[in-house]
Structures are given as C-alpha cells and as structure tokens.
C-alpha cells in the first residue's frame, strides 16, 4: 500500500536504493515513452514500486520515439507486452512547436490533443495496457503578463486548453489515466518544478531532484489500477473531528461551528464528506460514551458529518486495536484498504501494530489535516461509478439486513423474507466502471483474481454467444444492492471455461453464486458445450472459495501449487434452488436459454 511518508521522496536516496532492490515482489511491466529523457526517472520508479511490493521491469523506449514505438508492430514496446505505458511529453517541446506554428494558432490545442489521442488509440489497438499520459505544466513565459488570459493566441492559453482537451478525451477512452503534472508542479511551485538547466543538460521533464514526485504519481495511479485502493477511513472523534473532548467540555463546549477552531474542523469534515460521496466508507472509532458521541452527530449545528454518513460507529472504552479489528470485520475489508486518523500519537502508534493498516502522521495543527492527507494522495482511484456515491447508504442497508436476520428461525426463512430480485445482464458501457471496480477490488470471493483493466473489460464485452461475460445486480426490500457479481467465460471447444468468477462479499449466502452457476450451465447447454471447466488460483485472501467448485459437484482434474482445475459435465449438473426472483434485463446476455 501507499507509504504515508513524503520524506521518502529523496532523489539521491532513491537512486542509491534502486541499485540493490530485493528481487521479490509482484511483477509489473512498465514502458516509458516520451520526448523527454527517462534515464533518471526509471531507477526512482523501480525503487518506489519496490517500496510498494512490486518488482517493476521498466522498458525505456528511446528518446523521442513515441510514434515509431507505437506504430511499428515489431517495436520493442509491443514485444515487451507492458502492463502500464507512461507517456511523458515536455512543455519545452510544446512551446517550441507553438512558437514555430504559423497562421492561426487557435486550433493548436485541439490539433495537438488529436495527435496524442491518436497515440492512445494506436496503443490500444496493440494491447490492453493501462496508459498513463502526463499533461502539460503551465509555462513561465507570459509575453502578455496577466493580460495573456484575455488573449487566445498565447502559449499560456494553449497549454490550459490542451490540458482540458486531454482530460475530456481520457474520460471517453477506457484505460487512459492522466498524470496531472500541472497540479504537481503547481503544488510544489512551478518555478522549482520547471528547470531549464536540467532540460538543456539532461532533457529532464522537471528539476531532477523532483523526479520522485512525478514517479510517486505514476506509482499511485498504477497501484490503484492494480486494485490497491483505500476503501474506508476510520475516524477518531475528540481532537480529530472537533476540538476538545465532548465528555469533558459537553456538547456546547466542543470546538465546532462558531466556537474556537470550529471552522478548521468544518473544512476537515467537508473534505471527509467529499470522500464519502466518492465512495470511501467512513467509520468512527472513539474512546467515548456512545450516546454522547452520537448526540454530537445528531444535534450539533456545527457538524457537517451526520450519523447517516458513518457506516460503522464504534464508541466505547475498549482499546482501539480491538475496536479497529471489529470495524474491519464489520466492513469486511482488509486493513490495507483502511486509513485510521487520530490526533493522538499514542493511539496512532497502537494502531500501527495492526499489520497493513494505514496510519498517517497527523500534524499538530488540525488546520493542516486536509493538506497533509492531500499531500499523501491516499485516495487515488482507478474507477468511479454511480454506485460509489451512495455506498454509505448501501452499507447501512446491509447493517439493517444483519439486524433483521436475528429474528428468523432459519436462513431460508430469512432469505425468503428479503424478497431479493436479480438482473442478469451483459457488460454495458453504463456498467463498465462498476465492473472494473469490482474486478479490481474483490479479493475474497474471487476464484482466479484476474485483474482485467478497463480496456480489457471493453474487449471482453465483445465476446459472443456462450462466451459473453455477464453480471448480476441485486435489490431487495431494503433497497438497491447494486452490481455484485461478475462472470467471465471462454468457450474452448467442447468445454465452456469459467475464466473469472467473483462476487462482492456484501452478498455472501444470498444465493447469487447459485444463480450465476445455473446461468453458466444453462448457457453451456444451449450452446452445445458438454462440460464446464473452472479454475481456482489460491491467494492469501481467497481461502473463502477454496471449496467453491466442490460444493457444486465439480471434480478436481489437476492441482499444482498455483492452480486447481475442476470440471463437471453439463448433464450431471443439478440446477440449484435460489430465493431470488429474476427480472428481465434490457441487456440480457445473448443466446441465453431459460434455466431448465
């Protein structure tokens, strides 16, 4: 996971570190393309990937060979088969091209964006690697001064337009991310970031000592695409969400609203609410009287966050390590997907004993909480779906289901009472972001843990007939649950192979996997396949589905240390009973016969 420590970004130290990296780590192939020199960037990248558990193999395409590498099918780039392609282009080159352009230059940004987009398209035709495109840093030269913003024919204006064009185009093309160099440069200070000396001497994108900042941005994006993202933020209350101690100062006495530094905590809470709207789950872990703590959320006019924004609320006098474990279990997440924020150094150090949990140092001044978290870029993501924005609501509905469950004599009674409905549909443009997200994030109920990229999913969506991938979306009387299951199939002669099958852990024991399996076999039968073949690739996290195929009556054909292959004849499969009513889908998968 991301290392919550900015001081690790020292150029000289990283270069030294890169000389003797440990050889273990998840393999990752990354290609560097651009009209800048990448020889000083590459070692820094390898060191930072290593810090994050990846063994990065880096292909440095020759200086200024973007077009050749992209268009030549026999190029080193294409035979390298990268997972990630980074394209970096220098503002200095752009400035040169702009200066040389003659006539009306108002079309310059669009023409330039067209060329860059054409590169993406060409790369996309050759593979499914994640493309990370650096944008352009606002230049220092301003021949018109401030007035330049009112003049269309200026480099300043052209760079701003070009960056906007790139962002718009990246939104349309799956699998393209923008590395926001202009933000990085602005944050660090453009006069430090842009360094003519290092451009002239080494064709370096920026001041050499700041290359680690650029590299960290690349690592953040690549890791998020690999599914390493923060899913939940756990918050302390006293001193973290408000000033003072509610148990001592009382509801009226805490620093919130007009009182003391209330404005500071308001800004912090607004930031947290934005995270929540983006789909990051918020939870509370506080040493407090629960009734009193909840009263602040309910009654204090200075609170931005309300009880409805908090998915799990734990306020008691147990130690925080115990409480954090409880919260992890309730959220069904791993610690590495959780951030814990607490103003108290003792609690932070205690929390750091929990392996994987991300516990950033918080500054003494709460006014700097937002800045500190932003600097760490803890919340990088590779996808965003409409479902995210009401994730907390979904989590709370899930809690309601849990509470409900206690009242029923048997699981069957309970499941029947939920009146669950399902829609089975093919991959569509509308559901693609959520599909990608589920593929990136599911660890436990995931048979093969294949992390298809957005571009790969778009390709899978084109598979026809029995091989068409499908999704299952659920709703019940508590409300919408959303898209929770993804199945990727591959017809292989007489067999239909389950390439990937994964499910959100929010819907364990609801019959979703039985429903999906019924569909798979109905499909195999309709397309004339005699057998269905499935694989189980064990990981440290997917022990939950170790017996998945055995439970459906599959026989084990082969077992190695890395994988198991199971199969079952179509005639031998008995469709499972499920307490789910299936609704017709507008985007039903093709050639799907009704289950027998």
């Amino acid at each position, binding site marked *: 996971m991301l290392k919550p420590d900015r001081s690790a970004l020292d*150029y000289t130290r990283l270069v030294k570190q890169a000389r003797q990296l440990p050889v273990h780590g998840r393999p990752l192939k990354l290609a560097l393309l651009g009209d800048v020199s990448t020889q000083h960037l590459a070692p820094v990248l390898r060191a930072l990937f290593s810090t994050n558990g990846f063994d990065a193999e880096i292909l440095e395409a020759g200086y200024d060979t973007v077009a050749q590498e992209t268009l030549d099918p026999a190029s080193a780039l294409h035979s390298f088969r990268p997972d990630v392609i980074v394209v970096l282009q220098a503002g200095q080159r752009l400035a040169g091209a702009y200066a040389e352009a003659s006539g009306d230059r108002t079309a310059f940004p669009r023409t330039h964006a067209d060329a860059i987009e054409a590169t993406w398209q060409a790369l996309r035709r050759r593979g499914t690697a994640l493309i990370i495109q650096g944008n352009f840093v606002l230049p220092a030269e301003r021949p018109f001064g401030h007035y330049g913003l009112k003049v269309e024919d200026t480099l300043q204006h052209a760079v701003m337009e070009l960056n906007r064009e790139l962002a718009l185009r990246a939104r349309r093309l799956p699998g393209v991310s923008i590395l926001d160099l202009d933000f990085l440069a602005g944050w660090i200070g453009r006069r430090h970031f842009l360094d003519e000396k290092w451009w002239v*001497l080494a064709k370096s994108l920026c001041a*050499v000592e700041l290359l680690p900042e650029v590299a960290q941005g690349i690592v953040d994006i690549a890791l998020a695409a690999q599914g390493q993202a923060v899913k939940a933020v756990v918050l302390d209350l006293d001193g973290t969400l408000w000033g003072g101690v509610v148990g001592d100062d009382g509801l009226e006495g805490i620093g919130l609203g007009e009182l003391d530094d209330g404005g500071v905590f308001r800004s912090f809470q607004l930031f947290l609410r934005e995270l929540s709207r983006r789909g990051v789950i918020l939870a509370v872990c506080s040493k407090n009287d629960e009734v009193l703590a909840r009263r602040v959320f309910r009654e204090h006019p200075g609170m931005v966050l309300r009880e409805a924004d908090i998915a799990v609320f734990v306020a008691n006098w147990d130690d925080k390590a115990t409480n954090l474990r409880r919260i992890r279990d309730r959220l069904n997440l791993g610690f590495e997907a959780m951030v814990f924020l607490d103003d108290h150094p003792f609690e932070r150090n205690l929390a750091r004993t929990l392996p994987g949990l991300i516990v950033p140092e918080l500054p003494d001044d709460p006014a700097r909480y937002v800045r500190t978290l932003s600097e760490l870029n803890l919340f990088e993501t590779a996808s965003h779906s409409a479902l995210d924005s009401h994730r907390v609501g979904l989590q709370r509905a899930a809690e309601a289901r849990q509470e409900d469950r206690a009242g029923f004599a048997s699981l069957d009674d309970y499941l029947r009472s939920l009146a669950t409905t399902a829609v089975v549909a093919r991959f569509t443009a509308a559901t693609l972001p959520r599909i990608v997200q589920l593929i990136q994030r599911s660890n436990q109920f995931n048979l093969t843990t294949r992390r298809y990229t957005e571009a790969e999913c778009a390709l899978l969506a084109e598979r026809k007939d029995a091989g068409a991938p499908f999704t299952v979306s659920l709703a019940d009387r508590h409300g919408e649950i959303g898209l929770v299951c993804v199945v990727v199939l591959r017809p292989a002669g007489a067999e239909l192979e389950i390439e990937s099958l994964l499910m959100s852990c929010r819907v364990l024991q609801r019959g979703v996997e039985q429903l999906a399996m019924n569909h798979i076999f109905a499909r195999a039968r309709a397309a004339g396949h005699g057998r269905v073949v499935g694989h189980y690739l064990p990981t440290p996290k997917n022990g939950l589905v170790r017996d998945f195929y055995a439970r459906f009556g599959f026989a084990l054909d082969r077992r190695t240390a890395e994988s198991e292959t199971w199969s079952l004849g179509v005639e031998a499969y008995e469709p499972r009973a499920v307490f789910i009513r299936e609704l017709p889908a507008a985007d039903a998968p093709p050639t799907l016969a009704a289950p027998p």
Partner: protein
Amino acid sequence: MTNDAIHARLTLVFREVFDQPGLEISPATTAQDVAGWDSLTHINLIVAVEKAFGVSFTTKEVRTLGQVGDLVRLIAARTP
C-alpha cells in the same frame, strides 16, 4: 566555509552518490578516477552537491566541471 570543510562534506556526498563508503577524493580527482562517474551519474552528483551545499550551478558550469578542485572553488565562491 573553508576549503577543508567543503572538501570533507564533498567527500561524503561522493561516497553517497557513487555508493563507495571508502572513497577518497583530491582536488585533482576527475571522472576517470572514480568508478561509475559517467554522464548519467554526473547529473546525480550535481543534484546531490547542490542540495548538500544549498547552491546552484549554471548550465555551463555543470557541463564543464572536470575536477573536484573546480567544484570546491565554485562552492567556496557561493557559500558564506
């Protein structure tokens, strides 16, 4: 800063950049004398020296710096 003090700190920087803990340098030392001092690591050296002494060299200086002695003189001229 005295030349001796500069020389001492510069030695530490050289050892760090070229990853040679026992490395000794003299005013006459050039790239030929230090294993691994090439055009690529020259950039790393300059970045580390600029940071260690809080100075900045011009483009031409970076390009033409040949001997450790030149480096010491430039630093001496720019540090109080």
